């Protein structure tokens, strides 16, 4: 028993700190209706670390690799912040979608040059959360705290930006959008090597969607996202350990199952109310 706890404790701590930041970000992203921007950012960060590996032989989780990944996501943030305003002919989803596909293809292309490409791809997509080290937790802890302080200081500003929709583009300086996207890029850059693209995407989108089912108030939604995220993480880790499945996909599955069941119940409640 003690061994299990000893083994699962680091991943649990890592995941719980992830849900604190991603649960909050998810509310913003849902409000802005840019669901796929996080997966695009994660993929772009992955391209950065693949570049560092192919060009200079620096492996993931070295400082050079992080620097490459972060520079790529900063460039992408700049691009999104400006392009979304200037390009009005096609919907912003199309911009995000093509950039995502391009980043994913670039990563396949770069990894195709290395041996063991499949393992690399698997690492990037589903991470290695069960084997997270205390050193990794220290790093993400520092990054998340810095991001958390920023989010707290600018909380009113960011909230107002996310809630005001796309019409306000004329009035708000693009720098605020850049800051918002750049912060997403920062937390994602340091999380991708640990948790993988898929788990990050799911932890952002699914708890926030769940919260939006049950609450309207901003703060209440954040708390719900945190609680349901944490519960799913616990259940997912237990499932993964008990049934010997990969941890990331197990947590994603639990998140989806909880969401689908509660959405079903919720819509049935609603139709009952209407009928009665």
């Amino acid at each position, binding site marked *: 028993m003690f061994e299990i706890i000893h083994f699962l404790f680091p991943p649990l701590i890592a995941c719980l700190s992830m849900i604190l930041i991603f649960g909050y970000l998810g509310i913003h992203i*849902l*409000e802005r*209706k840019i*669901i*796929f921007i996080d*997966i695009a950012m994660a993929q772009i960060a992955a391209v950065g670390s693949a570049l560092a590996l192919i060009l200079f032989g620096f492996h993931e989780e070295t400082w050079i690799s992080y620097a490459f990944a972060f520079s790529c996501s900063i460039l992408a943030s700049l691009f999104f912040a*400006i*392009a979304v305003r*200037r*390009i*009005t*002919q*096609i*919907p912003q*989803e*199309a*911009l995000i*979608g*093509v950039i*995502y*596909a*391009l980043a*994913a*293809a*670039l990563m*396949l*292309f770069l990894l*195709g040059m290395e041996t063991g*490409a*499949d*393992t690399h*791809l*698997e690492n990037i*997509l*589903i991470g290695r959360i069960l084997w997270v080290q205390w050193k990794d937790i220290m790093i993400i802890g520092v990054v998340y705290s810095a991001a958390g302080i920023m989010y707290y200081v600018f909380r009113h500003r960011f909230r107002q930006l996310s809630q005001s929709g796309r019409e306000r583009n004329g009035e708000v300086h693009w720098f605020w959008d850049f800051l918002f996207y750049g912060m997403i890029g920062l937390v994602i850059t340091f999380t991708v090597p640990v948790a993988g693209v*898929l788990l990050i*995407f*799911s932890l952002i*989108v*699914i708890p926030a*969607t769940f919260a*939006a*089912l049950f609450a*309207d108030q901003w703060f209440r939604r954040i708390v719900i996202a945190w609680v349901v995220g944490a519960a799913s993480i616990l259940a997912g880790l237990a499932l993964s350990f008990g049934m010997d*499945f*990969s941890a*990331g*996909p*197990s947590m*994603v*599955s639990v998140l*989806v199952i909880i*969401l689908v069941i509660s*959405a079903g119940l*919720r*819509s049935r409640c*609603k139709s009952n109310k209407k009928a009665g």
Partner: protein
Amino acid sequence: MWQTFNFLSIQIVLLFVVTSVHTYLGLHVIRRRIVFSDLALDQLAGMGIIVGIAMGINGGSIFSYLVSMIAVLIGSVVLAYVRPVNQRIPHEAIIGILYALALTGSFLVVDKVPGGGAYITQALAGCLLWVNWTLVWVTVVVYALLAWIHIRFRHQFIQITENPGTVTREKAWDLLFFISLGIITVLIVPIAGVLLAYGFLMIPAAVATLFTREWGKALKIGWLVGFITSLLGLFTSYFFHLPYGPTLVISLGIVFLAAVFLKMFSPVNVPG
């Protein structure tokens, strides 16, 4: 020499047919703002192939296509009928979760298969080994049929995209639209992979839409851009031994970025 010629001519015929139909459907997809639904369908088709492999069905066989088709059909029903319960949740959230589920499902399925990761890479990057003349002719015939339906009923299809709610029996036309999207998805994903299938549909259409709103003009721009760029990608990948799917997506992506930058920094920027 003969082999090279044979291989390249298969590819060129395929690219020609694929760009023509995909670009047209892509224009619809962009105008309807359902950009990510196609990505979700492509990934579901990829998952179908992987599920087939886990059940012992060879990729590229008829049964493999059948499993893909079932996955895509289930996805289409979810996309068409599952709507968010309230306004706080964008429809895109449902599409995104479906996409994540398809990718996660693929990983869970290959989790217990030795060397399973290779199948995921293959589903994403495509597998050219499955291309032969039989497959190309099947694709040509099916695409020609779809093209005929879409030309014959173009007014209805354009009407449901431009002014939804004004066409009689709209649900039926909608379903027909999604079925065409599903059929081309199932045919193209095993060869081109998830990413290129998505690229074929989105990129030429997005480039065209950047420059014009007119259907006829947009089609011509899309076809020209799509076909020439994919040809360039094909030759680059063939003669420099680069991976096929990713190389084509990158060449299409470069053209897209160039077009976006052109529009971003051009002085005449008329919104609307």
